[in-house]
């Protein structure tokens, strides 16, 4: 690059940095929004079921029913309510006061060890199927734990056709916060790279500064670099802020290496920026640029990246679409780095995909950016 070229680039970067520092919305997206989102997903949204309201119907109370309802009460998963008759409980279920019913019939104590598979009846509200499955699973778990304990106390061995031994890897506490928080990092970087960048370039068109900028010796690549560099720095800074919040505030473990996070983070930032620049080439006003950036960048990063919704349980057609969502690969990398460590096959495959996307988007940006008003 020539001296004049360096001077032009330095001038642009200085201007862009001043604008970022003076524009409250840039700072808000880079540093305030991450905190808000992390709090929302860290504390507000939880995909685990806790304190599920269930109804327990005890038709004939005795020592064994008391002991079983005691186990439900002790569990973190449930907050039980008691009903005299199944009819009352079913009404409560209809009115959504409770999410499930455990029905201990009057012959509970008698049948307990003679016919162990049919002594309790369970009903669950299936409107939210995910929640229903969880509730069902927790009830079964609590029941099994209790009956095993009871059997041991009596000195008999419980007859069970299959014993399932399960262990959860990487997130032993099965805490959804641990995989949501790394996902939030990907969302924030998408916002900075795609939304913010698309908006600031569109703003140059809106305010007529682009036309004046064009009639200077400024070259195409200098203009692109002048936009990329400041927002790249902003994005990486935000990545660190997020990272520190995640491990200190939310106690998310970080099993991978920091340099790998920085490297893959930089790569993802470049992809996001390329998408942002591409949008601003197409949309020359802020409103349209914002709409496109949200629809093609932010929402897919939210919905189609595997951040909240599991990609494997999506319909095949949607699964195909997720392959062109860059956030998908970065979310996978982040979740791996945070929770599992440097698992090379996962990191390499996803990094490769990001590199391909970067090549495609950069080629499009270079091809489409022209110093022309047409």
């Amino acid at each position, binding site marked *: 690059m020539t001296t*004049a070229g360096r001077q*032009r680039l330095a001038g642009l970067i200085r201007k862009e940095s001043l*604008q970022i520092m003076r524009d409250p919305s840039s700072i808000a997206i880079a540093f305030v929004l991450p905190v808000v989102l992390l709090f929302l997903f860290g504390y507000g949204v939880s995909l685990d079921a806790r304190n599920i309201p269930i109804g327990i119907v005890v038709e004939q109370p005795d020592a064994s029913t008391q002991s079983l309802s005691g186990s439900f009460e002790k569990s973190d998963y449930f907050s039980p309510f008691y009903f005299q008759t199944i009819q009352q409980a079913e009404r409560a279920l209809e009115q959504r006061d409770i999410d499930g019913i455990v029905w201990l019939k009057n012959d509970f104590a008698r049948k307990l060890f003679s016919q162990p598979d049919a002594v309790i009846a369970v009903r669950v509200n299936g409107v939210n199927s995910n929640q229903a499955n969880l509730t069902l699973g927790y009830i079964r778990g609590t029941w099994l734990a209790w009956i095993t304990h009871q059997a041991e106390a009596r000195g008999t061995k419980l007859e069970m056709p299959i014993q399932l031994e399960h262990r959860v890897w990487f997130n032993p506490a099965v805490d959804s916060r641990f995989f949501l928080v790394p996902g939030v990092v990907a969302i924030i970087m998408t916002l900075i790279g795609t939304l913010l960048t698309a908006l600031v370039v569109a703003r140059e068109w809106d305010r*007529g500064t682009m*036309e*004046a900028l064009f*009639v*200077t*010796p400024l070259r195409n690549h200098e203009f692109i670099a002048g936009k990329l560099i400041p927002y790249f720095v902003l994005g990486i800074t935000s990545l660190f802020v997020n990272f520190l919040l995640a491990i200190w505030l939310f106690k998310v473990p970080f099993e991978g290496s920091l340099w790998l996070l920085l490297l893959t983070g930089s790569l993802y930032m470049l992809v996001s920026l390329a998408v942002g620049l591409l949008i601003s080439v197409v949309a020359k006003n802020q409103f349209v640029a914002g709409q496109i950036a949200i629809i093609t960048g932010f929402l897919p990063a939210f919905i189609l990246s595997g951040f909240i919704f599991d990609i494997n349980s999506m319909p095949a057609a949607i699964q195909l679409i997720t392959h062109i969502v860059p956030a998908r690969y970065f979310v996978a990398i982040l979740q791996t780095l945070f929770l599992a460590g440097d698992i090379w096959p996962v990191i390499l495959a996803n990094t490769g995909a990001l590199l391909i996307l970067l090549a495609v988007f950069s080629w499009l940006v270079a091809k489409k950016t022209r110093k*022309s008003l047409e």
Partner: protein
Amino acid sequence: MIFPVEVSQISKAFQAGEVQVQALDQVSFKLMPGQVTGLIGPDGAGKTTLMRLLCGLLSIDEGEITVLGLDAAKQPESVQSRVSYMPQRFGLYEDLTAQENLDLYADLKGLAVEDRLERYKTLMHLTGLSPFTKRLAGKLSGGMKQKLGLACALVVPPELLLLDEPTVGVDPVSRRELWQIVYNQVEQAGMTVLLSTAYLDEAERCAEVILLHEGKVINHAPPKHFSEPLQGRTWLFESDQLTPRQLQLKLSLLSGVIDALIANQGVRVVSESTEIESILTAVDPAIKLQIKAVQPIFEDAFISLLKKRDDHSVNYSGSHQLSKSVSSAEEVIKVEKLERRFGDFIAVNDVSFSVKRGEIFGLLGANGAGKSTTFRMLCGLLPLSSGQLSVAGVDLRHASDKARQKIGYMAQKFSLYGNLTVIQNLHFYASCYGLFKKRKQEQVEWALEAFELSDYRDSNAKDLPLGYKQRLSFAVALMHEPEILFLDEPTSGVDPLARREFWARTNALAESGVTVLVTTHFMDEANYCDRLIIMASGQVLAQGTPLQLKQLAQKEAQPLPTMEEAFIYLIEQQTDQSA
């Protein structure tokens, strides 16, 4: 001889919806080095397109453009390195300070760091911006922004300077200063300047003028050559019996009259021939006229070259049947000690005036003088901070619909629905004003006919030429036959032809008894008003008839000052006092 710009046979068309618009059609010219050439023409003539083509921002359909010896189509980047261009809305970064804007352009244009101090000093001296270098560009006044834009364009003296309407919406003082900067650069650095403008008086300050109309070059000559054919055909008519407005209304309808314009105390007339007798015989002999031959100016030439001949057939008198018998001394609008603050900023400060029925009352001032704020308070759109006002006896902010029915309002920006057709807009607003059935039909028909909108009745409003958009807005404001008309910058951005037509309509309305309150930043339009106030930074500088105001600036050297000279005089008086 080497010409800095050579344009030969260029054409450029745009696709606007389904219509192909020929922006430029076989345009050819050469620019002389080291002088200012003016690019003049009505809206949509192709001025901006031409500027953009010259700096390689658009591609040409056919023809050739050579700028500083370079092919603008093939080597746009080389051209852009050597030319400075100031677009209509100069791209200042409003969140950067004046100095930071200047630094950016110094970096972009490759001004060496060691040369900067001296160049900045020169530019700040020229523009008078030295005290404001630390201020954000967004907080500068319109005139200062424009001067800063020019300073940015001149940070490295270019060989060719292209200025697209640099003086639009700028107050007369800043306008004069902008011209001084341009002249200074031409004389000192031998710069070639191409400048487009909507102000016809500026054409006379150019060494040469290119007149563009509908994408074609009508004429390219020194400004004096334009007005030469009009020698002996320009007159000043005066009458003691009629007001200038009444006189103008009469004269403009006569055959043989190309143009009749209110000027100073009389009416300036351009006749078709040097023979004026034929015109005089058509005037009622009871009216005594004093006639003086005057020198033609560029504006006369512009109008006579471009005015459509069939305009005479239109009678602008409206559908209004207000009786003139109402005492004209009745004060329809009263404003006392009006004040409006926005935080610490006082937008309108101690403004008082009153308007009588059937008067045209003007609020004259540059952008940001507080005209629009005053207007919004009068229309009840904005609460006052203190003071009192009444319009037709009430404060419109708390008035009933019935009182609102009496006013018509034409906003500064085109505020009709762009994606509705002309006829749909008319129907919609007619219903808004409570016109129904037969009456609605009548008024819509009247609007289409009186404003010559029939040809465009099924066009979307956003696709209309600017002059027609303005007509449509005006028609909408008048459909319910208001007694009081508020016109906020009705002629902003409208070319001289459309402005004349607009004032002819407004005059006719005032003659039929409608009270008109109008804001404008065109100083010459003040002549149309019965009385006016001149505003600057929220305050009233002077109040009176156009003649009274102009007399304020009367000196031996200036026996017949124009409204612009009067305005500059008043501004300077104010600065002297505060200094």
